[in-house]
């Protein structure tokens, strides 16, 4: 009996599909590539054009003005480390890459997460998909991403999004399921239209959990962006890869710590920016 007949190779079916996509939708993927490259290029140029000390000073000032002094100190220390470690360019590339990846991940995950909290059937349907996205080793996404978008930053971003969407989506669903029922009833009883209920009741109540989701999304994206150094995405990932291949302990460690600095910076900044607005809103009404 030939057991080979029972062998299952999803790759055998997936590879032709990827090929087919590649040949038939090439202009589309090309446009996606161009668009992402353009946005990334813009962010990078903005971060790298001025001298590093200007960027550091500006970011520190923004944090102090809009968020808190504590966040501004964290910002200054994190960015100064990236500069002193001699990894300024790579750090800014990574910052741009993660920012774009997170923005896209959140804009996909947030609406889908709300849908999943409204429709239990939809949630049941996407749950296994999310499980697959989270547990398949991230290297595996890189293969089709590179096949379609070729080497560079775009496949890295795509793979990062695949990795960043599930935590944000799950926590969005959780956040919306946790909105107190009595607040929803209040919205209905006061005759609020669904839009008002969403923006004035649900999203504010869900914010703490949504911030946890955003934090997870940022950290996982950052982890993935580093892996993406393998496919030529540049940035700190490339430095880590270089440190590994050359067995340079110093470079690897510096790049690794710079990644931590960027992670802390992004987390505090995003949290502060989203929560800070609320406390400022409170201050306005006191007079």
């Amino acid at each position, binding site marked *: 009996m030939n057991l080979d007949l029972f062998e299952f190779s999803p790759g055998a079916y997936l590879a032709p599909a990827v090929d087919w996509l590649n040949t038939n939708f090439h202009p589309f993927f090309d446009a996606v590539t161009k668009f992402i490259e353009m946005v990334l290029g813009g962010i990078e140029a903005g971060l790298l054009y001025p001298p590093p000390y200007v960027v550091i000073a500006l970011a520190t000032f923004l944090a102090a003005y809009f968020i808190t002094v504590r966040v501004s100190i964290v910002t200054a220390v994190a960015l100064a480390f990236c500069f002193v470690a001699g990894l300024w360019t790579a750090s800014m590339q990574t910052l741009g890459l993660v920012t774009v990846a997170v923005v896209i991940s959140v804009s996909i995950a947030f609406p889908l997460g709300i849908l999943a909290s409204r429709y239990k059937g939809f949630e049941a349907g996407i749950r296994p998909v999310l499980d697959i996205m989270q547990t398949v080793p991230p290297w595996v996404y890189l293969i089709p991403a590179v096949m379609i978008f070729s080497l560079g930053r775009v496949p890295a971003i795509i793979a990062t999004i695949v990795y960043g969407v599930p935590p944000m989506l799950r926590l969005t669903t959780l956040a919306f399921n946790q909105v*107190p029922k*009595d*607040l929803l*009833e*209040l*919205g*209905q*009883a*006061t*005759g*609020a*239209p669904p839009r*008002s209920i969403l923006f*004035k*009741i649900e999203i*504010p*109540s869900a*914010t703490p959990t949504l911030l946890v989701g955003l934090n997870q999304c940022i950290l996982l994206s950052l982890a993935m962006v580093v892996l993406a150094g393998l496919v030529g995405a540049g940035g700190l990932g490339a430095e880590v890869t270089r440190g590994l291949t050359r067995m340079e302990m110093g470079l690897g460690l510096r790049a690794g710590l710079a990644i931590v600095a960027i992670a802390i910076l992004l987390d505090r900044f995003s949290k502060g920016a989203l929560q800070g607005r*609320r406390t400022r809103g*409170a201050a306005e*009404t*006191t007079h």
Partner: protein
Amino acid sequence: MKTAMNDSNEVLIDCQNVWKIFGARAPAAIQAVADRGLSKKQILQDFNCVVGVSDASLHVRRGEIFCIMGLSGSGKSTLIRLLNRLIEPSLGTITVKGKDVARLNAAQLRDMRARNIGMVFQSVALLPNRTVLENAAFGLEVRGVAKDERHKTARAALEKVGLADWTARYPNELSGGMQQRVGLARALAADPEIILMDEPFSALDPLIRRQLQDEFRQLTKSLGKSAVFITHDLEEAIRIGDRIAIMKDGVIVQVGTAEEIVTKPADDYVSDFVAGISRIHLVKAHSVMQPVAKFRASHPQHDVEALLRTSPDADIGELIDLTMQSNRDAVAVVENGTVIGVVTTRALLRGVAGTPEHEPAAA
């Protein structure tokens, strides 16, 4: 704003034979009720459906405070949510201001909730990220009222409930009683004719609760609002309500004024409730007095015209005072200058104790 003459008998809310049935087979159960008039027990047996509200009929007039009293699970919370269609009725009609609530489309329903029916919740349901003022203005905000105007209206509503100095605070800085005042101000700010109160004071301590009960009644009356007030506390219902409906297992057992319910309980369930209630300020002269002729027959030695006099609305407390002042054990009840009845000491004691009316054989 110009309003038509306020007819105090105008019916604002009218419920006719309203049912609410919960469960997977609710539609079949509803059909069975409509066709065959099944009872609650049969519905649970045959369809495994729970009846939340069973054949409830009531009406609320303009300016009236209508209390619905029942223990948990009696269907009172379901009933109040049927009035503004937070819950869809299974059967029966609910008319608010002459409009059949079930026939309103989504936009009309929102408009009715925003303009005609306010609601105050047991859990208060204040938005934690908004100040007291912004919370009070919430109803106006979702209706699209401009910021300055809605804040002005909300501030006025907060003044009415005594929170003018707290507008910039956040809900978590307020005590439970104050939070509930904000809830009331939020409902009042939208200036609805009807306010639905879903056990608003249940979670408060007794002293604050009494204070809020009195304030609520006074405020509602002075603003000319109608209210449907849910409570599990008969004393609260008596303090607040013009009329009281008593619910048990989804059925309205009795509707009446506090005095009617206390003096003529419809069944054992109601009389059990009423047993612990102090009747001194509830029972009035007209319900304990006996006809003049009967008094003359049993007390020939007394001259009715010489008795101390009082009105038919004097409560037992006042009657006791009068009896103590006089040297006779009876008080004459006078309406429009003529004596319409006599309250004897025996009748007073009966009124206080709530024992049924029967004169002893040898008087």
